[in-house]
């Protein structure tokens, strides 16, 4: 076990897997000597050199596109998009090529690749260094999507993602990159894609979240506990596929649920979760499922702390659900 942050875990896990499997290569902007602008690929260049740690030209289309071809040809590329906001110049490669390759070829070709990206706001990054584009990914058949919130899950899901035979979008909560330290299991520690983590069991309300919002939600749960309110805390971790069984089980049992995710409200991934809850366990609901999300505005700079899913907003919403 080693006590480490999320961003350290990314770099070390990549290094371990590159050691184990020489098909694994890393590519992106500044991933080489610089070790990534967040140091998420630190020291890899020194260990594996420019053939396996590739500083690409400044083009997300080239990065993702090259990863697709490498993957189809037998490598296991891990592409870094410097900020999730910059996925869009490369999103056609992800959507039109990667997501549809296995399907369109009748299984003849596939793209076992990972696209890593720091996502989310609260770091004074403004419009283009703060967004949470996960809805775009989950709505695109052929992509898997994970979004861990702890160092251990980062390791476990990153290994699963690299070893997965299909393209996985690996979102990293940049606000938590250095905010949490944790003992991370050594060696071959994997977390299956598609399993949520119940971080806490409680009877009064279910709180569902993922990514940086999971940390906000945890804080809110602590505050609730102080008030004697016990919450079941679910960290989805995987968004596609997402763990319906765990979610529906908890909501059916507790009857009250608040869904927390920082992306804009309209079309937020939690809309999907809420719609599914209502489809499947309507009769167990004792209150409407309420969402705490970002607002339908471009990610603001000056007011970003009001935009995030801060514990205050979560608590007010939980109160509404409890008072219903």
């Amino acid at each position, binding site marked *: 076990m080693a006590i480490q942050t999320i961003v350290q875990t990314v770099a070390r896990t990549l290094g371990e897997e590159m050691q184990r499997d020489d098909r694994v*290569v890393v590519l992106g902007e500044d991933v080489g000597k610089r070790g990534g602008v967040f140091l998420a690929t630190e020291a890899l260049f020194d260990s594996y050199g420019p*053939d*396996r740690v*590739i500083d*690409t*030209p400044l*083009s997300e*289309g*080239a990065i*993702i*596109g*090259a*990863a*697709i*071809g*490498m*993957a*189809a*040809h*037998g*490598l296991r*590329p891990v592409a870094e998009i410097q900020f999730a906001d910059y996925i869009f*110049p490369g999103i*056609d*490669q992800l959507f*039109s*090529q990667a997501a*549809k*390759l*296995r*399907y*369109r*070829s*009748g*299984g*003849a*070709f*596939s793209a076992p690749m990972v696209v890593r990206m720091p996502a989310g706001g609260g770091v004074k990054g403004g419009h283009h260094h703060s967004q949470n584009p996960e809805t775009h990914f989950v709505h695109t*058949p*052929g992509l*898997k999507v994970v979004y861990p919130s702890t160092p251990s899950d980062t390791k476990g899901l990153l290994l699963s993602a690299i070893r*997965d*035979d*299909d393209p996985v979008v690996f979102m990293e909560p940049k606000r938590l990159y250095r905010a949490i330290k944790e003992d991370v299991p050594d060696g071959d520690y994997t977390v299956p894609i*598609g399993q949520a983590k119940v971080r806490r069991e409680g009877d009064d309300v279910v709180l569902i979240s993922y990514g940086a919002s999971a940390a906000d939600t945890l804080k809110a749960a602590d505050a609730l506990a102080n008030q004697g309110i016990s919450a079941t805390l679910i960290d989805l971790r995987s968004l596609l*596929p997402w763990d*319906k069984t765990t979610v529906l089980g908890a909501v059916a049992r507790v009857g009250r649920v608040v869904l927390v995710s920082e992306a804009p409200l309209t079309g937020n991934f939690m809309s999907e979760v809420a719609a599914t809850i209502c489809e499947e366990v309507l009769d167990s609901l004792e209150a409407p499922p309420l969402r705490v999300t970002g607002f339908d505005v471009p990610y603001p700079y000056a007011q970003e702390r009001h935009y995030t899913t801060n514990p205050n907003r979560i608590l007010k919403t939980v109160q509404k659900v409890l008072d219903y």
Partner: protein
Amino acid sequence: MIQDTQRFQPFTQQPISVMSEAGEWSAPFDLTLSGALLRGLYRDMLGARLLDERYSKLQRMGKTSFIAASSGHEAAQVGAGKALRPGHDWLFPYYRDTAMVMALGLPGKDVLAQAMATRADSSKGRQMPGHPGSRALNIFTVASAIASHIPPAVGAALSMKLRATGQVTVTSFGDGATSEGDFHAAINLAGVQGAPIVFVCQNNRYAISVDFRKQSATDTVAEKASAYGMPGYYVDGMDVVACYLVMKEVVERARQGLGPALVEMLVYRYGAHSSADDDSRYRPREEVDAWLARDPIDRMRRFLIKQGLWSDAEDADVRQDINDSLNQAVRDIEAAGPVPTAWMFDDVFAEPTPHLLEQRDSLREDGS
């Protein structure tokens, strides 16, 4: 066959050609290709043309929904396809490359099976017609989105270089594709990395209705190669031997680690853009006729006959053979029967996820 010396110059003003319209050898070096190879080039062009004709007929009969014919592009496509090592090198083609994939070894039957989307289609009826692919032949299954296959082609070439496999990638596209951002992003990366890849642009001077002069401010596509630090060759795409020789040279150079190249082949699309198009809205009839008079298949036949490698009688026989096998192919494809509805849920991922199984079951339930 490829000499040590480089035969062709990049960035010429005139398209590279090695035979006249009349079928006379016109290159400043000797013809050293075998008769078998030359006959093969012709036969492949003819096979593709006859397949096109059959395919069009099937489309008009409603047995397939769409065709984007390769007629007029055969010399370029066969020249390129034949320059690769089948099953070793990789090809990233676009939707018009019927003749190219066939020259590389894909049976015409597979092309038609994909177009007719029966159980005979190895890609399981997933895509619209004109989108073949083959794992065995390393033909990266066509996707409709213009230029979107070019970055993956570069990625495959980088993998080849990294692992020193001795393979080469060829990717093919139209003149319109050169305007897409991904063309640029990809070829730029290939230039920087010296990837073993050849970019083949079939310039028919139209992207559907859009004239090349509205596509690019340059006279040629080839000259764009200099922006990526690689040679660009401007080739007469109606001269199959020139296409073959230039391709062979640049492919082998890439194989030797000497870097990528861009090859522009000047061609003409004999038909409308596709069965969904009406080209009379934008192309003058005289222009079409002038190019029809330069048919690459006729030119090669004249050449072969002059070389004593072909005869009219043989021509008739070969046509008959090809048509017979097309007849048989169509019968077999139809006999295979339609693809099952449930196949719709396979191959999204290597293993189906719970939500896909649920959706498959829900459709069954609905019975619709």
